[in-house]
């Protein structure tokens, strides 16, 4: 079917929303509560657009396209409405961007900037929700005063994870994201709620104060835990992994991770990492240079091969190493040592 968005004729698909059609056509419509992998919500209203023949503004994220629809995504009325909506949100928001970990990657901050929302003299200033921050769990800091109730976290927890650790409690102005009986978060800690939170309401405890988004390098790689092979992005500052997020690119995990992939990364920086080769002398490990260690190893292996034959030597490779490392490891054992005694722990 054909729709006209901002004077552009677009071939839209049946069942597609105005937002999706516009996005495919390269048009940008701001959103806060929309997430392509979650059900449509229509709560934040900043994606409002005008549709020919309708008085009211409609939300592009929830409205399906219909044939011949004429849509305007930007007009003074739309901009004014979006600005008012943003000012309403900001009137109940701490606006402490100076110290907020989300600064630089906060959707609210970006939109407030884009629409010139009045933060200093917000005409709508009034009562604010005062809820204590919950940071008693191991992984996630939950600052409810920053929550914009977009319900992405509750939706991801239910729709994607089927865990349902959190839902919205109460209603109206004082509605709040809560666990049952509003206690400390105790869940699988997949961290998906943090990944989808558009503002600084949910942040990674481990990453707090470790670096601003513009200071960090981002490297896409594959998670090193189970066999699913989730795509992850490592956030790097000063040669340190400070945060892990699911990759935004196409991946087998579609933006999901588990507690291990998301949070169990700081073993990388653990002080107990082995940093120098060690040789055992008199039952004690002594630091050695690489040359010493390699020479010693090769010497001993050669001696044993001489003395007992190739098949007295075995190699255990690893399911945690790369294909390339496994390949050359078994190649070394088979072609170098001369035995097929090479295996890994596939069996357990």
């Amino acid at each position, binding site marked *: 079917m054909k729709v006209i968005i901002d004077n552009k004729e677009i071939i839209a698909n049946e069942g597609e929303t105005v937002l999706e059609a516009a996005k495919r056509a390269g048009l940008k419509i701001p959103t806060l509560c929309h997430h392509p992998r979650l059900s449509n919500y229509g709560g934040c209203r900043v994606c409002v657009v005008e549709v020919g023949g309708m008085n009211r503004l409609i939300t592009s994220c929830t409205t399906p396209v219909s044939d011949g629809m004429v849509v305007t995504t930007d007009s003074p009325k739309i901009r004014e409405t979006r600005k008012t909506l943003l000012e309403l949100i900001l009137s109940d928001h701490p606006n402490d961007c100076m110290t907020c970990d989300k600064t630089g990657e906060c959707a609210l901050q970006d939109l407030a900037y884009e629409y010139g929302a009045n933060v200093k003299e917000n005409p709508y200033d009034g009562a604010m929700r005062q809820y204590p921050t919950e940071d008693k769990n191991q992984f996630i800091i939950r600052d409810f005063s920053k929550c914009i109730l977009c319900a992405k976290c509750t939706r991801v927890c*239910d729709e994607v994870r089927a865990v349902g650790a959190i839902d919205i409690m109460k209603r109206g102005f004082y509605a709040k994201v809560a666990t049952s009986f509003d206690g400390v978060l105790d869940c699988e800690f997949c961290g998906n709620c943090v990944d989808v939170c558009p503002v600084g309401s949910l942040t990674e405890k481990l990453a707090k104060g470790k670096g601003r988004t513009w200071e960090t390098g981002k490297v896409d790689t594959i998670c090193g835990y189970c066999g699913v092979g989730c795509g992850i992005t490592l956030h790097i500052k000063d040669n340190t992994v400070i945060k892990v997020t699911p990759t935004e690119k196409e991946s087998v995990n579609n933006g999901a991770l588990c507690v291990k992939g998301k949070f169990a990364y700081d073993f990388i920086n653990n002080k107990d990492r082995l940093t120098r080769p060690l040789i055992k002398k008199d039952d004690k490990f002594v630091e050695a240079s690489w040359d010493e260690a390699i020479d010693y190893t090769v010497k001993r292996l050669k001696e044993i091969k001489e003395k007992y034959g190739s098949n007295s030597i075995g190699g255990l490779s690893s399911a945690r190493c790369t294909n390339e490392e496994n390949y050359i490891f078994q190649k070394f054992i088979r072609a170098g040592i001369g035995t097929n005694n090479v295996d890994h722990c596939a069996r357990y």
Partner: protein
Amino acid sequence: MIKEIDLCAAEGIIKKYTDGVSDLISVLQDVQEAYGYIPEPVVYVIAEGLNIYPSHIFGVITFYAQFKLKPAGKYIVKVCTGTACHVKGSERISKEIKELLKVKVGDTTGDGRFTFEEVACVGACAQAPMVIVGGNEYGKVTHTEAKKIVKKYQAGKK
């Protein structure tokens, strides 16, 4: 005085229902009827029985004004604050009763006898302003009359 919550009643209620989550509100209503409120342990029994997240049940309980998480008093004092009652001075009645019982809206008196509630229209607007005490409706009451009615219950005469 912490009473052990008997979960049998809750289990019995859940057994009557078969549609899962769409029975949740009915189950909660029955539970509240049976226990006078919704005890926390019962929420987990419902979660198990209907296969719903406890957080969702909590969300539902706190969404609807009807549900209570604390035991209610022997008498529930309701002041209607619908429009008709409002224009006839229900605000004053509410204030006076709150002072008399020394409670806030939704609270129960220390002796556990009275719970005070404001309700949005009981639909008896022609009798405005309305007060309901212990299920008995009193229409066209003034604030002094309303206080007298509550005092009567306090004295145990009704």
